[in-house]
């Protein structure tokens, strides 16, 4: 939302602050200003000039004009191409050295042998309107004086988000009221209520849905002349980024920019019948809007209709069929109030945001409709001389009971604010913002809320706390540590666990990455995931974001491909949530996983075991068990990680067809499952008092036998005396046959109460050998 400093000064007489200071005060007390920019600063140098002569120049459409530019610039010769340049014309002269709209810099130049000592400018070239058909046509000023009604202005841009709750600040008067309160100046209300005519209305209004349209007011005018607005009005709209169209439309926009009340003017002769009907649209009802588009409506949309059909989409946009045209002589001027949520839904559904819808969705004040009409009457008389009111005010509304006053306990106020504040100061602030203050009990105010703040903004005492707090300035509140009982906070063990896993992975050489929660269908397909198993995004911006990841793998895979361009070997990991969809509208299961990866250019086996070691750091004593490979896993290098009787994740090499060059080993652990197991129970075992005995055994087995399987058989066969079975090394080659290998284990035995005899050790050894031979293994002597 843009605010003109000149306009604010008109509404707050005596306001004497620089645009920059004003901007800072508004930011600190009311709403966030994004900046302040001068509007058309070149107007400082532009003057009115009278064309004394204008001669055609041979071979072009240009004219050589001599102008009287007043005492400062004197008589100048300029080359001008405008068709309306003629002797006697009073227009705008831009001296050389000035930069005007669109960065156009004016210099003295020689054109076709004529030195042009400046320029005659159109409204568009000066940024005052959109008219570039010819140079400006002025009247009523002397050559050399500034352009009438167009002083240099400053425009404050306020962040719309910070106005969401303030319907009144969508017009200059609302902001002026704030400025007046901040500066302790008086607000000059521009509305003259006495301009509203009494008597029988010339038009009727029939509101069929008071929920959606609490109030509809209108006036009918006749003897209207449609034409361009005066320059000052065009310039003011242009300064705010509103497009000047015609005097009638411009006045409605001007009043909207001033009072925050959007209005609409219908050509009364293009309406059928003389009743305005406010109703829900019919299913499929077609509506041709002013913007040239056609919309198919539904009963959730509210329309303004005549006997034939919709003539406006209520609170959003007018219709093409009843718009003001050059020939218009009678108008119906609408000033209504609409229910905000419905306006917002309509505007969102039709993707049609207008200056009107933006205001109505903030909950405008129903009291304001007639005030806006009164203001429009005054302005119409200026821009369309001879205009007449036809009949009295058309006004239909279902008045809601006024909101109850808010009880404000001054002691509560001080406690919340965190500083003392005098009763009189509270009253002064509230009254400067037009609240009505009474004190029915000592130290308790009854605060009446002005209608323009009561629609949505202010209804509870906390809202009043904000009014007072911002006006006294929050910088007057001292920071104070609260006094309260010591309580040990709840400890988020799971989060701490994740942090410890991160620390450990980093210490082991892995760098943490963070990947998106989204994947594309194409990514899912690459890993053999079914897209429909994923939770789907309904409104993705790009195809990269259509599904929510149910594995960290696609992201990690991308990290591997990306980084392989720069590194021959690297380690990385991510801790993030897998998202698994559940039935119906339930929240999905979010399962935190650790995925670690090692990329190498070697054969990849060392990487797999390094990841196994990472798993062991986290899960002391965990096992890697062979398991059937998934489609994205190397078919002969895949397994699962088990710990304390539970399968907790996978250890695998990525299928080589998924890695362009080199190998990638992956460890994937379900951190929720691991956390659920709790810390490993530890129990002290007394140290052995008697020495242990050990012997080595070399077991001959097939090439694809699992080391852990033989170890387990040895342990089982060793019985109660077994302290430890440790794999040492394996051997292939002579004298073993080609399809055999030997695996050597060290067996340690011991007893708690005596030193083992050689007989005892020999028995265990024989038992182990017998068991292994029974299972088909040989023993290498």
């Amino acid at each position, binding site marked *: 939302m843009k605010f003109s400093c000149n306009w604010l000064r008109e509404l707050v007489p005596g306001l004497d602050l620089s645009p920059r200071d004003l901007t800072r005060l508004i930011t600190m007390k009311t709403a*966030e200003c994004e900046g302040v920019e001068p509007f058309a600063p070149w107007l400082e140098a532009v003057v009115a000039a009278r064309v004394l002569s204008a001669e055609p120049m041979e071979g072009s459409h240009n004219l050589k004009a001599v102008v009287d530019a007043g005492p400062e610039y004197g008589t100048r010769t300029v080359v001008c191409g405008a068709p309306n340049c003629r002797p006697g014309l009073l227009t705008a002269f831009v001296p050389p050295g000035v930069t005007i709209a669109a960065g156009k810099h004016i210099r003295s130049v020689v054109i076709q042998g004529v030195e042009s000592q400046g320029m005659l400018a159109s409204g568009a070239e000066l940024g005052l309107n959109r008219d570039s058909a010819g140079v400006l046509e002025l009247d009523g000023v002397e050559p050399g004086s500034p352009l009438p009604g167009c002083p240099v202005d400053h425009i404050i841009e306020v962040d719309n988000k910070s106005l969401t709750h303030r319907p009144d600040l969508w017009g200059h008067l609302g902001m002026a009221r704030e400025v007046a309160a901040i500066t302790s100046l008086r607000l000059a209300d521009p509305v003259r209520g006495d301009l509203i005519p009494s008597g029988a209305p010339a038009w009727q209004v029939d509101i069929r849905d008071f929920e959606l349209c609490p109030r509809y007011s209108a006036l009918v005018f006749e003897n209207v002349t449609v034409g361009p607005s005066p320059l000052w009005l065009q310039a003011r709209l242009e300064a705010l980024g509103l497009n000047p169209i015609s005097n009638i439309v411009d006045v409605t926009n001007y009043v909207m920019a001033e009072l925050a009340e959007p209005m609409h003017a219908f050509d009364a002769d293009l309406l059928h019948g003389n009743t305005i009907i406010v109703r829900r649209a019919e299913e499929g009802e077609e509506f041709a809007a002013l913007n040239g588009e056609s919309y198919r409506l539904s009963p959730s949309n509210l329309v303004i209709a005549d006997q034939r059909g919709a003539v406006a989409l209520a609170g959003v946009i007018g219709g093409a069929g009843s718009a003001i045209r050059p020939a218009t002589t009678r108008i119906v001027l609408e000033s209504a109030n609409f229910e905000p949520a419905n306006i917002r839904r309509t505007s969102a559904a039709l993707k049609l945001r207008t200056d009107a819808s933006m205001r109505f969705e903030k909950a405008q004040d129903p009291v304001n409709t007639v005030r806006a009409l009164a203001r429009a009457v005054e302005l119409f008389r200026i821009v369309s001389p001879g205009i007449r009111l036809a009949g009295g005010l058309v006004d239909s509304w279902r008045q809601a009971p006024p909101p109850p006053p808010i009880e404000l306990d001054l002691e509560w106020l001080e406690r919340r604010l965190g500083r003392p504040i005098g009763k009189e100061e509270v009253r002064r602030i509230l009254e400067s913002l037009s609240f009505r203050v009474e004190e029915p009990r000592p130290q308790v105010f009854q605060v009446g809320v002005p209608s323009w703040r009561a629609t949505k903004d202010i209804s509870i005492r906390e809202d009043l706390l904000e009014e007072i707090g911002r006006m006294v300035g929050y910088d007057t509140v001292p*920071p104070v540590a609260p006094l309260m009982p010591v309580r040990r906070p709840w400890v988020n063990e799971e989060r701490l666990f994740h942090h410890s896993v991160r620390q450990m992975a980093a210490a082991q050489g892995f760098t943490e*990455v963070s990947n998106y929660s989204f994947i594309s269908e194409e990514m899912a397909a690459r890993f053999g995931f079914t897209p429909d198993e994923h939770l789907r995004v309904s409104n993705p911006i790009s195809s990269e974001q259509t599904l929510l990841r149910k594995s960290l793998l696609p992201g990690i895979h991308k*990290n591997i491909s990306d980084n392989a361009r720069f590194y021959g070997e690297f380690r990385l990991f991510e801790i993030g949530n897998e998202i698994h969809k559940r039935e119906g509208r339930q929240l999905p299961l979010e399962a935190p996983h650790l995925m670690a990866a090692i990329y190498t250019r070697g054969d990849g086996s060392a990487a797999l075991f390094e990841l196994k070691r990472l798993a062991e750091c986290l899960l002391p004593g965990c096992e890697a068990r062979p398991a059937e490979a998934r489609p994205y896993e190397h078919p002969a290098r895949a397994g699962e990680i088990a710990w304390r009787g539970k399968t907790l994740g996978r250890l695998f090499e990525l299928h080589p067809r998924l890695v362009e060059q080199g190998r990638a080993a992956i460890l994937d652990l379900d951190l929720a499952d691991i956390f659920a197991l709790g810390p490993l129970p530890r129990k002290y075992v007394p140290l052995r008092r008697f020495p242990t005995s050990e012997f080595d055994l070399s077991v001959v087995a097939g090439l694809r036998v699992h080391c852990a399987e033989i170890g387990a058989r040895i342990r089982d066969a060793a019985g109660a005396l077994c302290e430890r079975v440790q794999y040492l090394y394996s051997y292939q080659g002579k004298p073993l046959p080609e399809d055999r290998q030997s695996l050597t284990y060290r067996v340690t035995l011991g007893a708690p109460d005596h030193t083992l005899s050689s007989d005892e050790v020999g028995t265990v050894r024989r038992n182990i050998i017998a068991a292994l031979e029974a299972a088909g293994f040989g023993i290498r002597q």
Partner: protein
Amino acid sequence: MLDSTLSDIEARALSAIEAASDAAALERARVEFLGRKGALAQIGKDLGKLSPEERARAGKLLNSVKQLLEERFDKKQTWFEEQALRARLDAEWLDITLPAPGVRPGALHPLTQIQKELEDLFTSLGFAVVDGPEVETEWHNFDALNIPPAHPARDAQDTFWLENGCLLRTHTSPVQVRAMERFGAPLRIIAPGRVFRNEEVDASHEHTFYQLEGMMIDRDVSIGHMLYFMKTLLEAIFRREVTVRLRPGFFPFVEPGFELDIQCLLCGGSGCPVCKQSGWVELLPCGLVHPNVLRAGGIDPREWNGFAFGLGLTRLVMMRYAIDDIRLLQSGDLRFLEQF
């Protein structure tokens, strides 16, 4: 006669010690003079032939020579041992500038680091660190936070909607409600985490970023209390005194609502591109918790009140390390991540 023999032996022995060039030569000399069959042992045997008086005197003399020589031999031997040790150790010279074997330690993501830092800070102030789901219900993300359907404030948060009617949380604020539901009042929590906005990605916009939500509910919590925590937080983050200003800001879940700005740390308030020439950087939206939000969380606003704030962690990380492209944080690019 004996005296002169002894002094002769002493002189010869001392010169042999002197002359010994290695431990073996010294040992040979020791055997020659102090050995069981050495020169002094030989004289000892002869003592028996002397008169008792003579024997006593000569024995004393012999002992003193023996003691002196033993001392000298030991001393020289020690010297040889030290020499030998020194030589051996010198031969063990290592080039410690060689790189350590094995894998270099990895790095933690800067967002992890800042989260941990802030979690530790708030834990020390008596706050619990809580988590909430990344996929949220519309109710928790909006309605419970006093943002009913068709509220214009929903515009400010472009939302990823999901096929099952849920959404990706647009802020960490829904954790306020979940924490109230779970713990009730009094309450002191922070909730760091990942949030999502449905917008195009460029150097300064991301659809995925991190926030830290904070909330305190107790009896009679004031704006002054909130300011105390905000200042403490910022000074811990920036490790220096910071100048802050509090101005009105609109967020439906707080009333009153504020924007807390810090004076630009780059230009000190005089204006620069980082602060868009204003001298201030918007950092911490905060406010007193709206009674409707307390009610949504099952807490009676007549008894309890509190403050809440939201801190953009991604933004903070970018400020701290002067990172100029937000996309790097989610890029997985090790050339970037290894810097932290």
